[in-house]
């Protein structure tokens, strides 16, 4: 069996982890949940840094089952901690080479020059003291150090959480490129929805030590029975292709099955696959196609589900074409005024689109 299959049970004072999930053999699976939901503990169990009862197989190998337990240093993992955790007594180069030297030559598939290029580390490798690096640079070295063990799975524990906003923006493009380049599964722990939407393909949702949902990202994000649809920055994710640039108005059209969206001019050439994120609070609903409106993006849609949220709001899930969905957060009064019902054809007016890559 390829991919990851895990089930762990761990009792701690005031906390119980009882989590089972599976993740595909390629792509990024986000372990997402509020702090204290057990996502970091779960990741540490997969690395063998915590010893919980349960079972774990990765890419067809059993790493834990009953009494069988492969110790951390024999697991072909790459682990990135929240703080870079570089060895302070070693130079940047020695940090990078620490795991490489300890990887059997026959297993070495990633080499120093590649990592220097992927992560933009050529300028930094001559530094003797890793504490002279900035937070973002340190984390890039830590990621490179992990990759140089040629891992068969990459485990990342909120690698951006300890960074300031600028360092985050600095490192995100590297992560995106990396994930497209690597042909290994990545488990990515995060409590920031925007990061998850940007990077992940699959989502494992944790709450109080339990897995409450597990599936493809866009599907799971738009499930109204899950808490993710009711976060302030809840929304839908649409995979689209850059179709056309309008130089006169400095706009770009993104196409997807079932419609298209205009966004501010992007740098990517036509044909590039991108992710567009549309927040539920930026989508309103109209019964007729608005004739005169400042809103550019108006999509034909069909109401799939309506769910109450608090006393005054409802969240509406709409299908666009056969593959895509949008969420819209409107007031309960609007729903009653428009008499919205499941199955109705409507027009979704999209006020704002965020391009994730």
């Amino acid at each position: 069996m390829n991919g990851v299959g895990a089930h762990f049970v761990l009792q701690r004072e005031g906390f119980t982890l009882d989590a089972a999930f599976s993740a595909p053999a390629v792509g990024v699976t986000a372990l997402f949940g509020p702090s204290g939901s057990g996502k970091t503990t779960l990741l540490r169990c997969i690395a063998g840094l915590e010893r919980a009862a349960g079972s774990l197989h990765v890419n067809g190998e059993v790493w834990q089952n009953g009494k069988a337990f492969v110790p951390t240093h024999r697991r072909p993992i790459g682990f990135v901690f929240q703080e870079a955790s570089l060895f302070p007594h070693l130079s940047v180069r020695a940090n990078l080479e620490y795991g490489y030297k300890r990887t059997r030559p026959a297993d070495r598939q990633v080499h120093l020059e590649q990592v220097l290029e992927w992560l933009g580390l050529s300028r930094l490798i001559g530094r003797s003291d890793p504490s002279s690096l900035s937070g973002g640079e340190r984390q890039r070295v830590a990621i490179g150090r992990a990759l140089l063990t040629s891992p068969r799975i990459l485990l990342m524990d909120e690698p951006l959480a300890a960074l300031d906003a600028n360092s985050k923006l600095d490192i995100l493009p590297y992560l995106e490129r990396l994930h497209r380049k690597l042909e290994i599964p990545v488990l990515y722990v995060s409590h920031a929805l925007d990061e998850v939407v940007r990077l992940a393909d699959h989502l494992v949702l944790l709450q109080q030590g339990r897995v409450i949902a597990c599936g493809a990202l866009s599907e799971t994000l738009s499930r109204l029975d899950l808490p993710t649809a009711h976060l302030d920055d809840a929304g839908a994710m649409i995979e689209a292709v850059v179709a056309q640039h309008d130089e006169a108005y400095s706009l770009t059209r993104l196409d997807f099955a079932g419609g298209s969206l205009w966004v501010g001019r992007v740098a990517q050439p036509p044909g590039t696959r991108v992710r567009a994120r549309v927040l539920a609070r930026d989508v309103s609903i109209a019964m007729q196609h608005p004739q005169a409106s400042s809103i550019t993006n108006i999509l034909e849609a069909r109401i799939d589900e309506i769910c109450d949220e608090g006393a005054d709001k409802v969240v509406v899930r709409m299908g666009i074409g056969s593959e895509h969905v949008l969420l819209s957060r409107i007031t309960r009064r609007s729903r009653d005024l428009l008499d919205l019902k499941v199955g109705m054809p409507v027009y979704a007016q999209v006020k704002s689109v965020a391009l994730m890559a």
Partner: protein
Amino acid sequence: MMESGLAPDDLQAVWLTLKLAATATCLLLLIATPLAWWLAMSRTWYKGVVSAMVALPLVVPPSVLGFYLLLLMGPHGAVGELTLALHLGTLPFTFAGLVIGSVLFSLPFAVQPIQNAFEAMGRRPLEAAATLRANAWDRFASVALPLARPGFLTAIILAFAHTVGEFGVVLMLGGNIPGETRVISVAIYNHVEAMEYTAAHGLAIGMVLFSFVVLLGLYLSGGVRMVR
């Protein structure tokens, strides 16, 4: 200030003291390193019991420690009976006996700085090393030892200096045999008993200077983390 030279007897005492301190320090490192590692990493309840036992020489008068060692290693003590059965004689009034006494007496001075250094390092560097394919010995040698180096330096200096200065344990274990157990502190005591103040001065001022230099070195290097 100092006499131009020390008497041959006193020189012998200086040499013996240095030999004792060096031997005890080497043994202490071998014993204290695993002990400090265990104390720093273990989470069991009896860790406190072991810590208290290690720290005992900080509080118990040296004469008390020496007294019980004398009983234990004497012909009727458990250790003495063992050494006799092995045809090794008894340990009191020998250099080996002094080494054992010194090791026990200086144990907290070696264990605590190393333990502090291991604790300050925390588990994270070791976890990082484990995810980078390093096995337990490798992690210890390539991460823990270098990161705890200041602790080791402090431990070596404190253990050595403390052994040089000890008196009570030596006296109780029968230390006044020239070339075998007569160390500097005992030699000073002898001189004073014999009213040879000049000779006592020669050794005593040397001890003061030695101690000052050791402490100066510790503080200037910034590596000092005195015992808790």
